[in-house]
């Protein structure tokens, strides 16, 4: 399993930006965040004590349509709980997140955005971090497909997803809460529990709690947990940004 790669602060004019590639699903997303910004008009419609979050998803080859509205809604609800919109300077202002899909399979009409959703979420998170928007927690997300024989496949390609029995997108917070679940296709609850377990292992690594309460991190088929990959991307960027200071010391 090839780990996703990401670069932070790739755009100069935006407050924060990130580019994210996921090799297994073939998605390539460029995200930018501007925050806090004054939103035009309708100040009465804005929440007086909270920031307004706007998400725009732009597909690579077509104008945004109904499907994009739907994903934007998912991202907005989820990020709304993660972004601390009550911090100083944020209430009555906007957090504008723009995500452009610049590579990978295009999504047809009526197709779910599920395969792209983790990449979109990760890009948004990294761009928010790059823009130093206060967050209550970070998260990591993954997509899993279950085929007819009940086999769980991590990060399926578009063709695999088309033949899969069910597709699941799960996002976990850095504290281990289930933040988001989008499942489609026919499945029963036991299957979902297996999927949840696997997804949790992908995002956070397998945690083996021994009898004395110690938690041991184990490497398994999924390799490094996603949470660590994202964390390292940010650490690398911080190291690069403060290179002058670290080396001078």
């Amino acid at each position, binding site marked *: 399993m090839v780990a996703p790669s990401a670069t932070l602060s790739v755009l100069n004019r935006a407050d924060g930006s990130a580019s994210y590639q996921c090799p297994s699903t073939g998605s390539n997303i460029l995200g930018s965040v501007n925050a806090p910004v004054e939103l035009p008009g309708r100040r009465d419609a804005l929440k007086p004590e909270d920031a307004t979050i706007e998400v725009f998803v732009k597909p690579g080859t077509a104008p945004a349509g*109904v499907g994009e509205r739907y994903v934007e809604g998912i991202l907005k609800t989820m990020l709304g709980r993660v972004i601390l919109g009550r911090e100083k300077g944020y209430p009555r202002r906007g957090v504008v997140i723009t995500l452009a899909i610049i590579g990978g399979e295009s999504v047809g009409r009526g197709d779910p955005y599920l395969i792209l959703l983790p990449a979109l979420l990760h890009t948004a998170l990294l761009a928010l971090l790059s823009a130093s928007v206060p967050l209550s927690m970070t998260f990591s997300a993954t997509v899993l497909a279950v085929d007819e024989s009940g086999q769980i496949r991590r990060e399926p390609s578009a063709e695999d997803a088309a033949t899969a029995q069910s597709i699941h997108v799960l996002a976990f*917070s850095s504290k281990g809460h289930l933040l*988001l679940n989008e*499942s489609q296709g026919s499945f029963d609850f036991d299957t979902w529990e297996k999927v949840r377990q696997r997804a949790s292992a992908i995002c956070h690594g397998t945690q083996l709690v021994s009898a004395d309460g110690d938690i041991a991190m184990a490497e398994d088929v999924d390799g490094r947990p996603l949470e660590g990959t994202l964390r390292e991307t940010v650490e690398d960027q911080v190291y690069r940004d403060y290179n002058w200071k670290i080396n001078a010391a």
Partner: protein
Amino acid sequence: MASSAPPPALTLPPSQFARLQPHAYLLAHLSPPASSNQPSLRANGRQPAQFRPTSANTGSLTHTNGSAVVRVGDTTAVCGVRAELLPTSDIAAWSVSHASPDARKRQQSTTTTTTTTTKNDGTDADAAAEESQIQDLHLLVPNLSLSTGCAPGFVPGAPPSALAQSLSHQILGLLHSTRLVRAEDLRVWYQVPTFAGEEEMEVDADADAEGEGRKGKNDGKEIKAFWVLYIDVMIVSLAGNAFDAAWAAVLAALRDTRLPRAWWDADNEMVVCSEAVAEATRLSLRGLPVASSFCVFEADAAAGWRAVIVPDAAEEKMIEEDQRRGMQRRWVLADPDGYEEGLSQERVCLVVDKEMGKTVIVKMEKNGGWAVDGRELKQLVDIAAERWESVKQILELC
């Protein structure tokens, strides 16, 4: 004189209190003081897991092929299904991609024999490929309209809001993923006369002709047109939970839909429909997926203005402990009305179906919070399965 009268005591009627302090109002209903001896009910008088009374009526619109009005409490959805013919000659690249289904089938059957897979697998794959025609050719076109003045926030005549667009997309996605409508019901076949042996012209759109065609030689049988179903949903009145009502209306309308018998008139080179109502056929739908939505109401009154909300494992444990002692801190409310939707951020949407008594989840969405995890979802699936039974009864009666 009015000035001599003592000023009235500052009392608020409940309706005003509900507007001024919505969160406290609902919380007071859900967790009444122990001394009052009142049961924990929602502000609308329902139990947390209780759905609103639902009614459905089909065949309300005479000019459509199928229609339904579904009312869930004060949320009302009207759905009309209009069928239009799409001649294959109008489909771009149809002749290239699909013109010779026989050839394609023959090729597929040879591949199945060469790869020594079982015949069953071959036909399954074949069926899946044929089912994808609904998706590829856009044979189902749902649209949901909220611009009817259904709620104060929705101005009539305005462009579709983001909510309306995402609901339309959800309906379309669910129609595709459940494969509710059979592609076979939407095809208009034409049997090219062979003139050699039997001169029987088989021009039929029903299933047994196709079954026979698939079993035996289906030479000379071709699709001349498709029915396209335009599924229009109008939310006439919106009081929360638009998706459940809209999906139930779509389901009821599709169950009500009758397509006229259509055949290819070779002389006029066009598809003709029969006027006889008796010849019209109903769609044979796959299953009966029923949607049920939930929202999570959190008792934390400070959540509205506290700056930092960082729940961690310790806090979660505290909430669980309180729950065991009978002090509930969060409630999962089934079928939220508009008032409750405004007070909650976390939503769960479940679509379940039952096959031979076994509950099958078709769609499970959860977003906007961290209160609902595996254990809660399992309970919700059970509630949704109960809801399935009641909705099934309602739909079968109408």
